[in-house]
């Protein structure tokens, strides 16, 4: 009789928890004592991906640092929905200054901790894609090149959602926003624009850069934990669907994020000192349409006569990501 030696745990680490795993192998989010850094009562929309991503990331950072953590927040949805005066949803020390200076303020907090001898207290800066890739980009680049001891987390929902869904430099091609209407010859956001901040962060040769998604909790917690275990400037870029801005069903937030990862449109990788050192493989590859059709901002690509040319262009972006980052294990792939 052949012996079965494969360890098998029903859902493995795909689910948040798993009663079959040892306590110390479980996720932060499965813990009954998790911090809930971003507490209930916040005013984010139903099914907000950013609220979820922020709790995932900050709870993980809190566990690594033994709850000795200060967060600096850029202006944006996350700041507005969590702290309408006099209420706050944050259960950690938290400061907000301006839209564009979160990285600079965080550098200052880190310096203050250093000069007061509080080397045990760590600093996180966080903002949306607008505050990170556009408005706060100068400060962010400065923080990187000085290698300040800050983890900067960008919650990327691909537009300015708080002010009414305007385009940012993280808005993907063809997406409809309030400022890139789905009209004319090239409906939605134009192709060939925008910037990839994780790659730009890598170009600063900082100790650690990673991308993560709310669809893969264990991967996200692993990367935040890793980031907090090193010093210097670090950057984690988290993909967080926005039901309001993307026109997706609130219940589908994680599904949408999952399809972005599984199609290859949002590659999950890690880089150390400017070099890609790890990638999270695609589990069941899907065509980009599986991701796009869940969102009204891409509705103009479908309908009676699908815009095949643009769909092909978007598929080409996904395929390039898969090639560049090695998202499919060619040795293990079969069929």
């Amino acid at each position, binding site marked *: 009789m052949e012996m079965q030696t494969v360890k098998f745990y029903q859902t493995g680490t795909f689910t948040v928890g798993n009663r079959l795993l040892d306590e110390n192998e479980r996720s932060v989010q499965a813990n009954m004592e998790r911090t809930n850094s971003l507490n209930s009562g916040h005013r984010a929309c139903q099914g907000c991906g950013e609220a979820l991503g922020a709790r995932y990331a900050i709870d993980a950072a809190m566990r690594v640092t033994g709850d000795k953590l200060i967060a600096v927040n850029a202006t944006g949805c996350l700041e507005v929905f969590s702290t309408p005066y006099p209420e706050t949803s944050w259960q950690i020390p938290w400061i907000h200054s301006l839209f564009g200076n979160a990285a600079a303020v965080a550098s200052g907090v880190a310096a203050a901790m250093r000069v007061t001898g509080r080397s045990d207290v760590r600093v996180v800066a966080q903002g949306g894609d607008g505050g990170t890739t556009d408005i706060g980009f100068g400060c962010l680049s400065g923080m990187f090149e000085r290698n300040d001891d800050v983890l900067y987390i960008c919650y990327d929902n691909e537009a300015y959602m708080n002010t009414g869904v305007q385009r940012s430099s993280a808005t993907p091609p063809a997406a409809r926003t309030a400022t890139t209407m789905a009209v004319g010859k090239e409906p939605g956001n134009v192709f060939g624009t925008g910037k990839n901040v994780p790659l730009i962060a890598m170009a600063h040769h900082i100790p650690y850069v990673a991308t993560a998604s709310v669809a893969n909790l264990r991967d996200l917690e692993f990367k935040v934990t890793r980031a907090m275990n090193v010093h210097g400037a670090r950057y984690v870029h988290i993909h967080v669907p926005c039901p309001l801005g993307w026109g997706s069903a609130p219940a589908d*937030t*994680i599904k949408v994020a999952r399809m972005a990862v599984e199609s290859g449109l949002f590659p999950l990788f890690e880089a150390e000192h400017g070099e890609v050192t790890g990638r999270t493989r695609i589990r069941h590859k899907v065509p980009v349409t599986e991701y796009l059709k869940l969102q009204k901002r891409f509705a103009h690509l479908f309908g009676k006569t699908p815009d095949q040319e643009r769909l092909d262009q978007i598929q080409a972006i996904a395929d390039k990501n898969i090639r560049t980052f090695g998202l499919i294990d060619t040795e293990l792939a079969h069929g």
Partner: protein
Amino acid sequence: MDKPFAITLDVGSSLANKTGSWRTSRPVYLDRLPPCNNACPAGENIQAWLFHAEGGDYEAAWRELTQNNPLPAVMGRVCYHPCEDACNRGKLDAAVGINSVERFLGDEAIKRGWKFPAPPKESGKRVLVVGAGPSGLSAAYHLRRLGHAVKVVDAGPMAGGMMRFGIPKYRLPRDVLDAEVKRIADLGVEFEYNRKVENIRDTMTEGKFDAVFLAVGAHIAKRAYIPAGEAAKMLDAVSVLRDMEGEEKPMLGRRVVVYGGGNTALDVARTAKRLGASEAIIVYRRNREKMPAHDFEVEEALQEGVMIKWLSTIKNMANEGTLTVEKMKLDEKGFPQPTGEFETLEADSLVLALGQDVDLSLLEGVPGLAIKDGTVQVAPNMMTGYPGIFAGGDMVPSERTVTVAVGHGKKAARNIDAWLAGGTYEPAPKHELADFEKLNAWYYTDASKTVRPMLDIVRRTSTFDEVVSGLDETNALFEARRCLSCGNCFECDNCYGVCPDNSVIKLGPGKRFEFNYDYCKGCGICVSECPCGAIKMVPETI
């Protein structure tokens, strides 16, 4: 008034903001009916016992299983597992090997000597069970656990009924059957063998029984008129299989022809092979698609060298053993029609496996009984037309399998219990079905079904060793963990993790979860991301 300029409020927590008021529909936890449970004729709560097995608590799993079925080691060998046909995992890779895990648990119980708990209190009622087959054993077990004094009488020399006298040893070793019967006897059930009940009402009065459950098996072979010479050796399948249990094994010869297309025909043909026949040929009047025998048994028989002659009927048997066989063809309705083409087949013996009947003579003179097509008609509560006489198994119109019989026994026991107390048994309402569409299969890891090792072909055709052997502990655990837990929370923490509003309260191991409706905005992510479909959205009432 020591607040800064323009500030009038104290700083507070957002918990003051009850976002639950935004909600138009709310998530609720529910248990849905897993397809396996729905398909089980014995009404086992399969998902529940697999849940314990997944965690490695085999005794808890066995105790959960035996709430509904006292014969897991038998069942894990002879059940045709309709649960596996219904299993949602079949749509992912292959169905969970429920039957093999059941057998592992049954064997483990025998090995470890696990016993049933004594009934909490005695009811003072006496129930007679006629027939110690699967249905009678099941009823006796359930009645005893409900506190009734139970006596089982059987016309045969030992317990088991058709399980002993109809199922070959290579499918059900007798020590396994004996161990599970003994466990029921240890519970305080009284057995009397070699006693045929001639008149049921007299037996009831003499023994002062308050109720009776009739579970007589179908031991009488159906005959077909086949003209045969006086020296021609023609036998029936039931007696061949019964004689296998005695000292004198049946003499079938080197060329054996079996007539019929059910599982019994296959049992006889495979038994003949093991007795040394060089040829075992099944003659069946229709084709393989129409054959009532289970596909895997046909497959195993063919592997062992049994031959099957499709679309053929036997016209007569001459003295020296020559059979005249007529070829048939199916008409458009699928019925076989004669073609007028004949051929001959040499056979040392012909075994008829054309179905079986139940001996209903014990019911003569009982008023109010309705008998139709050789079976006793019963109400939905398994009671015959005569108050206090219940019937099940082969005696009543139904599919004749061990599992169905066990299910009848349980159902009858619950109804007898209620009837004895002067009430009626109300089964719990069925939950809605957890079909595949209710699941989020993304979350389950990929794993193929652990196939039970098969005895080497040569070895199994020449001996009566068990053909299919069991799983060991590691692969039984592996197999149990392939369960998707359809429709029933298995505490994966997904709802607790994916809620953007922290509105799911984790209550701790074994206690599942609760919603905090003060803050739940009703987004429904928990419903979408629940792997097993144990949450649903319902509209809020205003």
